[in-house]
């Protein structure tokens, strides 16, 4: 069933059109990976899906209703968003950082959390395997540990839709694999997960569906095996890809500068 849908979505930045008439919808129980070269409009699309930007044309609909008509607080409970290169500006305690994900449910860090909120924080920490460093301040953590807590912050909202912008961009392979496993587990539990990725190998392995963006348009949309064919991604990235099959999963490998 489709939950979130971009309908004829157009976005302009000054004179430049970043997204041209995007029509995509996202189903529950699925991880949808958005891939495409730098500047192809991935971040812009995700920001619109999360309701942060106003479209120049078309709209984004949540269960059929335009996102713009939803109150900010309601939207925040239904769509959790992890920005690209997310940062933390104060050396908060890990647990407090995750508790920020409960703000849409009325939590206040100035007071003790309700049992409901505290449970959600605990669950989120457990899902990212972050309980071990939840009681340390975030400035004392490695980048990978901090990224886990930021992901846990997003999970703590327990929203039905999870939008993550390049959550594995600066993580080592172990953290990257863990993060993708967590996202897939969320989808298995019924969430609608939309994630932008630069690592096509991870997209091939962990996504149920891949959308290839190029020049602000959808170049392909389908199961990883179809969308990640060299014929499509060669043109999108301007790079020659080759493929290897590992344990039944086709992995694209960027091989030559010329397609």
């Amino acid at each position, binding site marked *: 069933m489709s939950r979130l849908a971009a309908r004829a979505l157009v976005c302009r930045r000054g004179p430049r059109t970043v997204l041209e008439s995007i029509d995509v919808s996202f189903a529950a129980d699925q991880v949808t990976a958005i891939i495409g070269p730098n500047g192809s409009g991935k971040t812009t699309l995700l920001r619109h899906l999360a309701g942060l930007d106003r479209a120049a044309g078309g709209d984004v609909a949540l269960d059929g209703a335009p996102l713009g008509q939803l109150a900010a607080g309601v939207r925040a409970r239904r769509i959790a968003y992890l920005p690209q290169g997310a940062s933390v500006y104060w050396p*908060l305690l890990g647990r407090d950082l995750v508790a920020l994900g409960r703000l849409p449910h009325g939590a206040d*860090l100035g007071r003790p959390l309700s049992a409901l909120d505290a449970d959600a924080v605990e669950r989120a920490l457990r899902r990212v395997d972050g309980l071990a460093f939840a009681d340390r301040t975030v400035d004392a953590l490695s980048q990978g540990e901090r990224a886990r807590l930021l992901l846990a912050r997003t999970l703590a909202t327990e929203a039905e839709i999870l939008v993550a912008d390049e959550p594995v961009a600066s993580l080592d392979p172990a953290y990257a694999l863990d993060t993708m496993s967590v996202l897939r587990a969320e989808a298995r539990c019924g969430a609608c997960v939309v994630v932008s990725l630069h690592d096509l190998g991870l997209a091939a392995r962990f996504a149920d569906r891949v959308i290839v963006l190029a020049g602000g348009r959808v170049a392909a949309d389908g199961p990883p095996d179809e969308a990640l064919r060299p014929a499509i991604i060669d043109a999108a990235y301007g790079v020659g890809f080759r493929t290897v099959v590992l344990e039944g999963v086709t992995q694209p490998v960027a091989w030559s500068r010329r397609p």
Partner: protein
Amino acid sequence: MNRWLLVLVLALYVVSLAVGPALWPWRLGNEVGWAIVWELRVPRATLGLLIGGALGLSGAVLQGWLRNPLAEPGVIGVSACASFAAVCAFYSGLAAAFTLALPLAGIAGAAIAVALLMTAVRAGTGTVSLLLMGVAINAIAAALIALVLASSPNPFAYQEISLWLAGSITDRDLRYLAISTPFMVAGALLVLGAGRGVDALSLGDNAARSLGVETGRLGLRLTLGVGLMVGAATSVAGVIGFVGLIAPHLVRAKVGYKPGATMVPAMLVGAALVLAADILVRLMPTAFELQLGVFTSLVGAPFLVYVVRRARSAWLAA
């Protein structure tokens, strides 16, 4: 912690009523003693309490909102603009002709600065443009104050203005209290309810918005609140620097660096700092009473250097 801070503030308030050329004035048991209490000490101590609270709270709000531990009410130019307007009131002779012209001008100046800052907030261009706008307002206000001082034909006016700029709560009567209190209280009420929004901003603007915080509206609310508090405080007391910078630093670690939870204790610490400083300037054996603003700068600036050197680089760099 808040309970102990409240006890400290109340204790300092009582000491502030007691200390001065006449110690424990109510013990005189006559009309003069009570006149000293009601007409000199109560306005002075109450202004110290309110102005200190307003500055400490404003500092905590600005630091949380701008995500910068070095932000200060003075940074966004509201103090400077209020000072300039008050200087104009001195220069034009309005302040001499009509006592309340001075605080009224200060509040008007603050309102102008807030209006200018609101344009930066409305444009939605973020923290950097707001800080730059503050820097520009500060620079313009400082230059205009210098211009007014340089063209003052009356050397006494020059002296009066210089003294006022240095910041003090000496000899402010109940009328000053009456005109500044409503603005400071209104500003405090506006910002005190915004703790959750400021907490969300710990994750940056985009994440805060995704958490349902309408950051534009929050910015307007905080700009207005800080403008009211700092404008009213500056208009009656001149520039009392560093309180807004130091107070949040003193309490932040105790509340786990949560910016929303920093606000109330920073307000109490701000009140305690100004009350204590104002008591100390009365007790110091100087030829004439040292200006409160000069004293807070003398103590505050080295403290700032200490805080900066000690601060964990991770969050100072952010």
